[in-house]
C-alpha cells in the first residue's frame, strides 16, 4: 500500500526533470535534486507517520472546535477557530523538526554527501533543493485540511468562513510561516550529522521564535511600543488577522526576508564544511 502510494507520487515527481530540460543544465540539476529530495520523503516511513500524526491532531482539533461552537453562540467562524486553537499551534510547531531533521544530517551521517558533492553540482542547488523538497512535503501535509472545510460545507450547507479571502489569508500565513520555520530547520540540520540533535536545535529555535510574540502577555510592564514591536513577530496575532481575511504585506515581508536570511546562513554553513574538515 505504502509502496503503491510512493510509486504513484514518485512517478509524478519523476516528470520534473523532463519539463525542465530546456531551461538549461542549471535548472535541470536543481530539479533532479529536488525530485530526489521529494521522493526520499515518500520512501521513508517517517513521512507517513508525520502525515498520519498531523491528520489525527488536526482532525481532532477540527471536531473539538465545532462541538465547542455548537454549545453556545460565538463571534468567529469555524475556519478562524480551526487556525487559532492551541491544539493547532502545538501540532504546528512539532512538525518542522520532523520534516527537516534528516535533510543534511542524514547525508553527513551516511556519507552520501561525498558522492553528492563530487558530482558537478553547486552548493546552492543542493541547499535550495533540500529546502523546496521540505516545502513540498509541508504543502502536501496541508492539502487534506482543505477537505475538512469542504466536508463541513457539504454536511451543514453553510460556509466555514465568511469569504474566500479568509481561506487564502490563512493558507498564505501557513505558507509564509512554514517557509521561515523550514529554513530554520534546514539550518539546524546542516550544523550536525546527528538527526536527533538537529531536531532538538530546530525545535528549541522554532518554539522560541514562536513564543517571542507571547512575551507581551507574560511581561506586563512592557511599554506599548515594545508590545507593538513584539506583536509584529507574533505568529498568533498575524494568523488571527489573516484568517479573518485581512491580508497584510508586513508579515509577508518579514517571513520572506527571514527565510532568505536563514537559507543564506544554511548555505554558508554548508560551504564551511569544507574548511572544517
Amino acid at each position, binding site marked *: 500500500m505504502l509502496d503503491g502510494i510512493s510509486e504513484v507520487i514518485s512517478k509524478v515527481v519523476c516528470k520534473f526533470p523532463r519539463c525542465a530540460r530546456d531551461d538549461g543544465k542549471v535548472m*535541470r540539476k536543481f530539479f533532479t535534486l529536488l525530485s530526489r529530495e521529494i521522493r526520499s520523503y515518500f520512501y521513508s516511513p517517517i513521512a507517513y507517520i508525520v502525515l498520519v500524526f498531523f491528520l489525527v491532531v488536526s482532525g481532532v482539533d477540527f471536531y473539538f472546535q465545532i462541538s465547542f461552537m455548537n454549545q453556545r453562540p460565538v463571534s468567529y467562524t469555524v475556519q478562524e477557530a480551526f487556525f487559532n486553537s492551541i491544539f493547532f499551534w502545538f501540532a504546528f510547531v512539532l512538525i518542522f523538526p520532523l520534516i527537516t531533521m534528516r535533510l543534511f544530517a542524514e547525508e553527513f551521517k551516511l*556519507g552520501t554527501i561525498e558522492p553528492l558533492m*563530487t*558530482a558537478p553540482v553547486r552548493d546552492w542547488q543542493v541547499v535550495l533543493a533540500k529546502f523546496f523538497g521540505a516545502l513540498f512535503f509541508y504543502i502536501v501535509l496541508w492539502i487534506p485540511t482543505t477537505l475538512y472545510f469542504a466536508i463541513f460545507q457539504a454536511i451543514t450547507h453553510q460556509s466555514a468562513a465568511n469569504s474566500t479571502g479568509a481561506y487564502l489569508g490563512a493558507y498564505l500565513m501557513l505558507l509564509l510561516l512554514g517557509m521561515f520555520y523550514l529554513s530554520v530547520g534546514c539550518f539546524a540540520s546542516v550544523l550536525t550529522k546527528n538527526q536527533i540533535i538537529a531536531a532538538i536545535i530546530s525545535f528549541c529555535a522554532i518554539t522560541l521564535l514562536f513564543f517571542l510574540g507571547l512575551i507581551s502577555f507574560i511581561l506586563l510592564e512592557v511599554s506599548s511600543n515594545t508590545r507593538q514591536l513584539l506583536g509584529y513577530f507574533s505568529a498568533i496575532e498575524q494568523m488571527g488577522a489573516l484568517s479573518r481575511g485581512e491580508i497584510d504585506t508586513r508579515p509577508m515581508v518579514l517571513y520572506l526576508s527571514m527565510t532568505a536570511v536563514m537559507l543564506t546562513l544554511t548555505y554558508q554553513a554548508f560551504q564551511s564544511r569544507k574548511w572544517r574538515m
Partner: protein
Amino acid sequence: MATHRAADCQKLLRQMIKVENLTKRYAGQTAIQDLNFEVGKGEIMGFLGPNGAGKTTTMRILASFMPPTSGRASVAGFDIFEHSLQARAHLGYMPENNPLYNDMRVTEYLDYRAALKGVPHRRVSERVGDVKELCGLKDVEKKIIAALSKGFRQRVGLADALLHEPDLLILDEPTIGLDPNQIRQVRELIKNLGKQHTILLSTHILPEVEMTCSRVIIIHKGRIEACDTPENLLNQIRTASGVLLEAKTGSDNGAEELKRIPGVKDVSVSRDGEWQVFSLRADAEADVRPEVFHLASDRHWTVRELSQRRATLEDVFVEITHPDEM
C-alpha cells in the same frame, strides 16, 4: 630512472592529473605534505600506502570534496579550485566505502546520478543501460540498494563513476570488503576500463596492483616515498630476487662456498633440524640455480629444496613503509 620518466612523458598526450606541492593539514596534524605527481592519459596509476597515509585525503582533494591547505592540483586540465565544476564533470569518483542512497532502486539511482552529472536527457537511458551491462547489474536493476550485497553495491558505485564517460576515474579502495571471486571480477573490469580511461586506484591488495597498474605511487606518512612502474620498483629493493636452498651439507662452510658462485651477493643460513636453509640474494638478472645445483652435486649435498623466490610488490611496500622492521 629519470630517462625512463622523460620517455614516459613523451608518450602522454595530456596530464590527466597534475599535483603540485599539495598539502593538507587537519587541526594539529598534517595529512599530506608537498605531494607532487602526475598521471598521464591512459595510465592506470596505483596509489598505495598504509592506512592513514593520506590516500583518501589526496583523492578527496582531487575530487573537489575538500580543499587543500596549500598547493595546486588539476584534473583533466581544470584547476580543482578555480574550475571545480568542470573538473568534477570530467571525473568519475568512487569514494571509500561507497556510500549510496539505500532507499532507491538501482536503475532509479543511476538515472538520478546521470541527470545530476549532466548526461544529455536523450542519452540517459542508453548510458544507464550501458553501465549496467558493463558492471553486471542487469539482474539486480529493480532491487532496492539497501537489499544489495556488498559486491553489488560496489558495482553500483563503479557504474555511477562511469555514467558520464569521464576521462578520469578515481577509485578509492574499489575492492574493499569483497570476496576473492568478486575481487577478480572487479579487477577484470578495471583492467578493461583502463583501455579507455585514465585511472587512479587505491587499494591494499598488492597483487591486484601488480596485475593492473602501469605505475605505482607509494605514500607514507603524507609523503610520496616511491613513484615508478612496478617492475622498476621490484628491481630497486634490497630483497630482490633470491634463491632458497635447503640441504644437508655435513659441514659448516656451505655458505662460504655458495658465496663464491658468480652473481651471488649474499648468503644467510638458518637451521631446520638437521637441515640447513640457505637464502641467497642474487643479481636481479642472474639465475644462479644451475650453479647452485652443480655445487651441491659436486659436494654430495642432499638437497630437498631449490627454488627461486621473486620479490613482490608486497616486499616493496613493506620495505618502504616499515624500513626499520626489515
